[in-house]
């Protein structure tokens, strides 16, 4: 099932399949490890705050807008 990263709850994992955004958005994300194929685990998903994820051994905080444009296959 392919869903936006934003919809994952803490503890859930997914494989990145697509980044839907402009070139700046894409390159920013994959340079930080969020490339197609990367396994992501959601640590926190605050209702009014950022989404905190773990990918490739590092923790990233993403704005809601960005997390809604990262598409993952739920694991």
């Amino acid at each position: 099932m392919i869903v936006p990263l934003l919809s994952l709850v803490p503890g859930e994992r997914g494989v990145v399949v697509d980044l839907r955004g402009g070139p700046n958005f894409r390159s920013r994300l994959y340079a930080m490890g969020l490339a197609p194929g990367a396994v992501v685990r959601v640590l926190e998903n605050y209702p009014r705050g950022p989404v905190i994820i773990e990918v490739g051994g590092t923790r990233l905080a993403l704005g809601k807008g960005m997390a809604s444009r990262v598409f993952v296959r739920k694991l």
Partner: protein
Amino acid sequence: MAMRVVALAGNPNVGKTTIFNALTGMRQHVGNWPGVTVEKKEGVFEHKGERFLVVDLPGTYSLTAHSVDELVARNFLLNGNPDVVVDVVDATAVLRNLYLTMEIFEMGLKNVIIALNKVDLAEKKGIKIDPVKMSKALGVPVVPLNAKEGAGIEELKEKIWEMAHGMIKTNPVLPRYDPEVEREIEHISKCLAGTELADRYPLRWLAIKLLQRDDEVMKLVLRYLGEEKLKEIMTHIGEAEERYGRAMDLIIAGQKYEFIDGLTHEFMGYGKAKETLTDQLDRILVHPVYGFIAMAFVFYLVFKFVFAFGMPLQGILDDAFGRFGEWVAPHIANETLRGLLVDGVIGGVGSVLSFFPLVFLLFLALSFLEDLGYMARVAVLMEGILRKFGLPGKAIIPLILGLGCNVPAVMATRTLDEEKDRLVAMFVNPFIPCSARLSVISFLVGAFFGGDALVALAIYLLAFAVALLSAKLVSRFVSGEESPFVIELPEFLLPSWKSLLLHSWERSKEFVQKAGTVILVGSIIIWYLSNYPVPMGTGKSYAERLGHLVAPYLNLMGLDWKAGVSLIFGIIAKENVISTYSILYGGLTGDALKKAMMSAMSPLQGFVLAVVTTLYVPCIATIGAVRAESNWKWALAVTVYMITVASLLGILIWHVGTAMGL
């Protein structure tokens, strides 16, 4: 013989600065990369009697053309001819770090050494890396380090030396992509082969960058090969993307990681990862409720630290310079020269240097929080709120620092990643009432409102509101993309004191050099205006004449010529507003001055004066800082904008207040 050049590359938060400091010690210099406000650090180390110049490149995750930092790093690697490139890799996040490494390899650089940092931390996280196998897999030497404790630094120097002397043969591994992608790379390579462009840059790198639609490389093709050729290549790429149904850069990035992942299996093993302290702390520190409480507490501590130690030191230095002036004065016979030296030069230098402890301590506290990894958490917390006003979350740091002193606050805007954010943040910072304005506000509120804290609070809230609304306004006029919000939350790591002190020292020194000259010139002008043609107090000095000159304008907001003189002198330093009133009232101070002012002005006038003093103009040191961090035009724009806003508000408050019968 010219010094050999070592370029230090790596991701942010990997301990690159610590390695730089461990290599070069005190022999370093901080400046700017030409044409951009990106900090450039250079240092020298000696090994086996030979000196090496180390250039610290901006910490980046990749080498695209999307950000200034990345372009600076990339251009240096391409055109700076470094003899050796040291690529710092964080052992706790090898996969992501090697992405940058692969970009470096693809640029055709051969003399690369991997400095594998934080090996101890990785082991704690259950990550086992075999440096020998890693070196074999990557085709370049790998030196394991624990930079904080200095372990591995000598080995690194030795390897740099050997490599610079051609004693190490390397064979950097190049990422292989799927056959279809390789075919595209080959096709574009063929289009470019044999051209002048191919002589200057590695063919494969050009081809891959074109596939990623890299702006700078596209410009290169346009310049060297013309529009026809560029169009032909881009059409071809467009067709390929059509077939794939997605952007080529995304495909390449995914496959690059796949390749790296394959590599890491040859030298890396995962054990069982334990939950770290950082995991636990982050549950509080970025929490939408507890996080703010923690942040308020942290900034409270920073303020306590900076002002508890900084204020007395500032007083001592001020005193010392005052006494020095008094001591020098009798030794100079010529009255003009004496005034110039004692009031102008010594007073001016004194006020610059008396800032030094405050600035140094502020930078110390900030560097500590930054190196610790806490600033990233603050940025996450504030993003949601500040973004509404066109600022990134990180901009809270300069805004809060402004309450202490706007000069280091303006300098702290350089920690923001985007040029646009930096410009907006430094534009609105001078609105934040610094400690000098606190003294003016509390004096006036004491005089006209019996020290009612609510009035003072209202002025502060007004100032913050003006700053935020101005940010919203100005950010519309500054070109630049809104930075997408994604930020790394690095593992908390206690910074090394040596590194902190060094960094704060360099930055404060820079402040003295840059703001210093402006303050010095300002002090000399003040001295001149208030002593010529006759000393102030007679109504005939230039200063008083200037006051009368601007009086008609100030009348619009209910203020008189005395306010004019005070506000003009306040440009040098805001606390001058009160001391000038003191001179104008024949040397009255404290309660006597308050009484005199109260009989001359209504509370409404007092309130207008407090508001205008808070907002009307950045002090000269702050103007100097804005200029240093941007340019003269921007510093001028801030000044004009503030005068306008303060005037409008002053006029508004005065007229509304009078209409209400206040």
